[in-house]
């Protein structure tokens, strides 16, 4: 007696080859399974189906693409030619395109099933894509008939070791319930308007046989085709391994600020530079990168507003060393041009890749707001930055993030991103203070995890050598509210001098 080998727990998988998609399904589709992808017109179903086919045949296998009352094959293929994945040599050889509509119209679902069985057997395809399944549903006289069709197809393709991916225009409609219950996996494609742009997202709703990354993940359709960006909080930042060399401190390149921080920041840490526009956040961040460059520590500037050319030009006013480091790329510059279609996860993925590739030790993200702008769900902003910072910590990177406060003056300091302050290791506050119709800049360390700090408030100025911090600022009452003014009746001669005295720390709220 012969016996086929006992099946192991893990079923063989079929990689779709679509960047990011196999990460969401934790390793691809299960071979022999039947999957349904649903989405409105324009969601990207036909492109995704073809991309999976071309990816599949690239590894030497065969695919069958069946259309049911969708665009003509000639027109569809001509539309696909603009994508990188399209390979004309595979069309008609490894990928067979057939229309099943005529037989569906004439012989209904039993005829279509017989047609699929014969065509699959003859083509030896290990991937079946059906585009326009909604048409099959419309000829079924009952849910039961449609379920029977799917069940019989499911059993047959499993016997052939073939995987089926079906695309339908319906999206959560009650009449597709029968189909959704039958399939091994269900994927939703959606898109919605965000500002003047479009945010596309994909969600695995059901996947029999294994775990997957739940929830919606953004994707884009560009020259390479569909690229999925799993939410970084679902894949990154989960490692408990972090550099914990408590003795090591990194200088921010500003001796007085290092002193306020008890010697500098830890190598694997996240520091927020919090302040209003023009308060000097970018200069503090660049000083940190410049100090690293002097120690041969690769640094990266990641910004949204100033172009590399503008940054180099502005750095010239802050000392020749920084300007030279930027020009010679001792400090790398990565600029994100404004666009309504940016995907935060794509930016984070690219950032992490560069950090790993170049061995970046110091990173300055100039403008958290640049990321926040692209979230269509602001609720996930905190989780996003938490994952990003954790991952960077795990990579041993000292990260500085600048965050703009909305109010130039006022008694309250608001951190626009919920939970962001709690996940930071250090917070440095830069503020403007008005006194006698003149703006002063103040700096203070509001938080430092795992170290003693000098909590005094100090005035600083920006000159040709960068930031220069004065001794403790001896302020008048309410100076921390940013509303420093003379008390009524206080003789001017009794006012404290600006560079003496002591401030007190204000609590974030």
């Amino acid at each position, binding site marked *: *007696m012969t*016996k086929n080998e*006992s099946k192991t727990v893990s079923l063989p998988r079929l990689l779709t080859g679509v960047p990011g998609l196999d990460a969401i399904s934790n390793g691809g589709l299960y071979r022999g399974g039947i999957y349904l992808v649903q989405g409105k017109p324009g969601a990207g179903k036909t492109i995704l189906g073809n991309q999976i086919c071309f990816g599949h045949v690239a590894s030497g296998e065969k695919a069958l693409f069946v259309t049911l009352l969708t665009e003509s094959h000639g027109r569809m293929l001509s539309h696909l030619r603009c994508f990188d994945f399209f390979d004309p040599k595979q069309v008609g050889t490894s990928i067979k395109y057939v229309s099943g509509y005529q037989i569906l119209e004439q012989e209904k679902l039993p005829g279509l099933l*017989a047609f699929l069985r*014969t065509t699959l057997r003859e083509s030896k395809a290990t991937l079946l894509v059906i585009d326009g399944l909604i048409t099959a549903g419309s000829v079924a006289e009952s849910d039961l008939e449609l379920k029977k069709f799917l069940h*019989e197809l499911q*059993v047959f393709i*499993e016997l052939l070791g073939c995987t089926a991916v079906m695309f339908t225009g319906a999206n959560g409609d009650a009449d597709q319930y029968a189909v959704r219950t039958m399939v091994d996996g269900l994927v939703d494609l959606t898109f919605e308007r965000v500002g003047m742009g479009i945010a596309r997202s994909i969600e695995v709703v059901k996947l029999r046989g294994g775990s997957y990354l739940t929830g919606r993940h953004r994707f884009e359709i560009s020259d390479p085709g569909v690229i999925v960006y799993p939410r970084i909080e679902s894949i990154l930042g989960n490692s408990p391994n972090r550099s914990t060399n408590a003795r090591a401190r990194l200088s921010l390149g500003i001796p007085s600020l290092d002193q306020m921080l008890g010697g500098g920041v830890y190598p694997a840490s996240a520091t927020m530079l919090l302040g209003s526009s023009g308060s000097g956040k970018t200069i503090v961040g660049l000083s940190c990168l410049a100090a690293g460059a002097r120690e041969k520590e690769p640094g990266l500037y990641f910004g949204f507003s100033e172009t590399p050319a503008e940054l180099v030009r502005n750095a010239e006013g802050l000392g020749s060393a920084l300007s030279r480091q930027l020009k010679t790329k001792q400090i790398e510059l990565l600029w994100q041009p404004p666009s309504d279609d940016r995907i935060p996860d794509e930016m984070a993925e690219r950032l992490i890749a560069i950090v790993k590739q170049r061995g970046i030790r110091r990173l300055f993200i100039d403008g958290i707001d640049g990321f926040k702008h692209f979230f269509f769900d602001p609720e996930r902003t905190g989780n996003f930055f938490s994952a990003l910072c954790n991952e960077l910590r795990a990579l041993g990177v000292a990260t500085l993030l600048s965050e703009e406060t909305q109010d130039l003056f006022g008694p309250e300091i608001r951190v626009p991103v919920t939970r962001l302050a709690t996940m930071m290791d250090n917070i440095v506050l830069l503020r403007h203070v008005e006194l006698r119709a003149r703006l002063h800049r103040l700096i203070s360390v509001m938080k430092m995890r795992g170290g003693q700090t000098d909590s005094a408030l100090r005035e600083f100025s920006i000159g040709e050598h960068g930031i220069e911090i004065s001794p403790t600022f001896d302020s008048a009452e309410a100076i921390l509210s940013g509303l420093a003014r003379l008390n009524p009746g206080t003789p001017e001669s009794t006012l404290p001098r600006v560079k003496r005295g002591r401030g007190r720390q204000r609590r974030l709220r």
Partner: protein
Amino acid sequence: MKTILVIDDEYALVESLIDLLEGEGYRVVSAANGKDGLARVVKENPDLIITDFMMPIADGLELVLGVRALPTFRTVPVVMMSASDMAGMLTNRRLNLSAFLSKPFQADELMSIVHKLIGKGEARKAAANK
């Protein structure tokens, strides 16, 4: 043309196997349980029996015991299919099975066993002769 009897209560699998085996040049008859299957054995005199283990009315074990009790069919090859590995152990001990297929299996595995037991189907032979 060689005849294969397929016995399984999963109609979709039976339909698929009929499609595949007929495509390979065999005559295929079917039944949905062990009792009907035994009647088909007597009536159709198959060259090969492919049967499921877990079935209503009479299971695969009862079917094969019944087949082996008939002098004409003591040596007819039987392939048992089941999603339960235990079925293979149970049936192998007592029934002189030709092969055991653990579900899910693929057509290639089945065809390889069928070809080994009864040779290739006529359509394929004809195609090969050309």
